[in-house]
C-alpha cells in the first residue's frame, strides 16, 4: 500500500457508511484500499453487508457518508457509465445475469451498452468466452447450459466489458468441486483486480492472498488470508467456520508456490 502517489489505486473506499431508508444501518465507516492486480476476499457471515458493499462499488447504491473511488475516479452520478464499465460484477445467480436469447448476445450486452462499435462486438464476445473456455456455446441458449457453464458465461459477460476490477458475489455457490476448480483456474489466469465476496473459506484462501472480514457492517480484520483464517477468536467473532478437517496453516504455503 506504499505505491507511488501518482498511480491511482484500483479501489479506494473511505469512511463509507450506508443506512437503508428504513433506518437500518448496513455499513459503518468502511475503509478499504485495493492495489491494481490484487486479489482480495471479502469474508463475512450472512447479513454482514457484503452484497450491500458490492453494490456501492458501481454506484447502484449511494453511500450515506464517505466516498468510493475506482482507478481514482469517484463513484458519482456523472461518472457512472465509466465506473460500471470498470467495475464488473458477477452476481450470485447466473440466471439473473444471462437474460438474452443466446449466450453471445448476453456477452455482447455490456460492451454494446458501453458504446463498443457493433463491428467489434463479435470479437469482444468471442475473446471473453475464450477466456473462460466457453467459446463453443456462443450460439446456445443459457437455459440449456449446466450451472457451472452458466457461471463461467456470467464471468464472460463481465470480462467482455474489459473491467479493471472484477467483483464476484459468492462465485462458488452451487458449484460442484470440478467447476469450482475450473473457476479458480480461470480467475487466477486473469490480469485484473479481483474481489471475491464469499463464505467459502478454502476457496478464498486458495484464490486471494489478502482478506477482509466484514461483520455487522464493519471491517473487523484486514490482512493475509491464511493468518486471518488461523485466528480462532476472529473466526468465532465473525461467525465464520472452516470446513471439518481444514487447517489453513497447512495449506498456507499455496501462495508462495
Amino acid at each position, binding site marked *: 500500500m506504499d505505491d507511488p502517489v501518482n498511480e491511482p489505486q484500483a479501489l479506494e473506499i473511505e469512511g463509507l457508511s450506508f443506512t437503508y431508508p428504513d433506518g437500518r444501518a448496513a455499513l459503518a465507516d468502511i475503509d478499504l484500499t485495493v492495489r491494481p492486480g490484487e486479489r482480495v476476499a471479502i469474508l463475512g457471515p450472512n447479513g454482514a453487508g457484503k452484497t450491500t458493499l458490492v453494490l456501492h462499488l458501481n454506484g*447502484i447504491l449511494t453511500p450515506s457518508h464517505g466516498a468510493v473511488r475506482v482507478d481514482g475516479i469517484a463513484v458519482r452520478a456523472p461518472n457512472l457509465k465509466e465506473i*460500471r464499465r470498470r467495475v464488473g460484477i458477477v*452476481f450470485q445467480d447466473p440466471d439473473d445475469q444471462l437474460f438474452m436469447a443466446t449466450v453471445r448476445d448476453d456477452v455482447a450486452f455490456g460492451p454494446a451498452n458501453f458504446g463498443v462499435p457493433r463491428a467489434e462486438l463479435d470479437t469482444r464476445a468471442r475473446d471473453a468466452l475464450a477466456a473462460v473456455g466457453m467459446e463453443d456455446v456462443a450460439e*446456445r*441458449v443459457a437455459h*440449456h447450459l449446466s450451472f457451472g457453464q452458466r457461471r463461467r458465461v456470467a464471468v464472460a459477460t463481465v470480462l467482455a466489458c474489459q473491467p479493471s476490477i472484477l467483483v464476484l458475489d459468492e462465485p462458488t455457490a452451487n458449484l460442484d468441486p470440478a467447476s469450482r476448480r475450473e473457476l479458480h483456474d480461470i480467475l487466477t489466469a486473469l490480469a485484473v483486480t479481483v474481489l471475491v465476496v464469499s463464505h467459502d473459506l478454502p476457496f478464498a484462501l486458495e484464490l486471494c492472498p489478502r482478506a477482509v472480514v466484514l461483520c455487522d457492517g464493519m471491517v473487523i480484520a484486514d490482512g493475509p488470508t491464511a493468518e486471518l483464517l488461523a485466528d480462532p477468536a476472529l473466526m468465532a467473532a465473525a461467525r465464520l467456520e472452516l470446513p471439518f478437517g481444514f487447517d489453513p496453516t497447512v495449506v498456507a504455503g499455496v501462495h508462495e508456490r
Partner: protein
Amino acid sequence: MGAGHHHLLYLERDSGLHRLAPACKLAATALFVFAIVVTPREAFWAFGVYAIVVLGLARVAHLPWLTLARRLVIELPFLAFAVFLPFVGQGDRVDVVGVSLSVDGLWGTWNILAKGTLGVAATVVMVATTRVDDLLRGLERLRLPRLMTAIMGFMVRYGGILTDDARTMRIARESRGYDPRWIGHTRALAASAGTLFVRSYERGERVHLAMTARGYDGTMPRIIDAGPTTARAWLTALALPVGAFVVAVAAWTIR
C-alpha cells in the same frame, strides 16, 4: 444439459429456408397467411394449392412430418368452437346421416378449419426454420420497437426458468404428501402460484440490477446486425405471398 442447441421450436437442418433472412421469412409468412384468409371459402382448389405449397416448403426444409403434425395441435381449442357451428347455424339445413345440419354452419366450419390449419401450418414451418434470436432480430428489422422484442426475449428466456420453478414446487408439495382431491386442497396450489409470482417479481428486480451493472440505461442496445437483407432474399421470400395473392384473386374472379 445434453439438450444440445435447443432454441425452443427450432429444428436444426440445412436448407435454403433455414438460411433465408428472418425478416423476409416473417414478412412473407404474415402476407401468405393474409392471402389465405382473404381467399373465398368456396374455392377448394385454392386451399389445395396452398396446402401443397406449405407441404412443399416443409419438404424443402427437411422437417419431420410427425413433429409438424403434432405442433398443429395448438389450433384444436379454436376448432372446438368451429365444430358447433353446423348445429347452431341458421338458414338452410341438410341431413347428414340423419342429423340435421346448417349449410351455412358447415361452410363456417370448413372456412375456419381450412384457413386456420393452413395459417398455423405456415407459421409452424417458419418457426421451425428460424431460431428464436433470429426471429426477434427479424422483428426488429421489420421496425418492431426494440422494447417489445426485448420483452419477448425475456419471456422466452425466463419462461423455462418459471416452468422449472413450478415443477420443483410441485415436487416439494407432493413429497410432503400433497394429493389434491377436494376443493379445499386448492389453497396450497394458490399459495404456490402466489409464491411463484413473488419469486418472479424479485427475479425481475435482480435481472434489472444485473443489467444496470453492465451499463443498461433504459434502451436495449443493438447487439448484432441482422446482416443486410439482400434484394434477392426479399424476392425469394415474397414470391410466396405474391403467388398466394394471385391464387386468391383468381379464386375470386372465377367464382
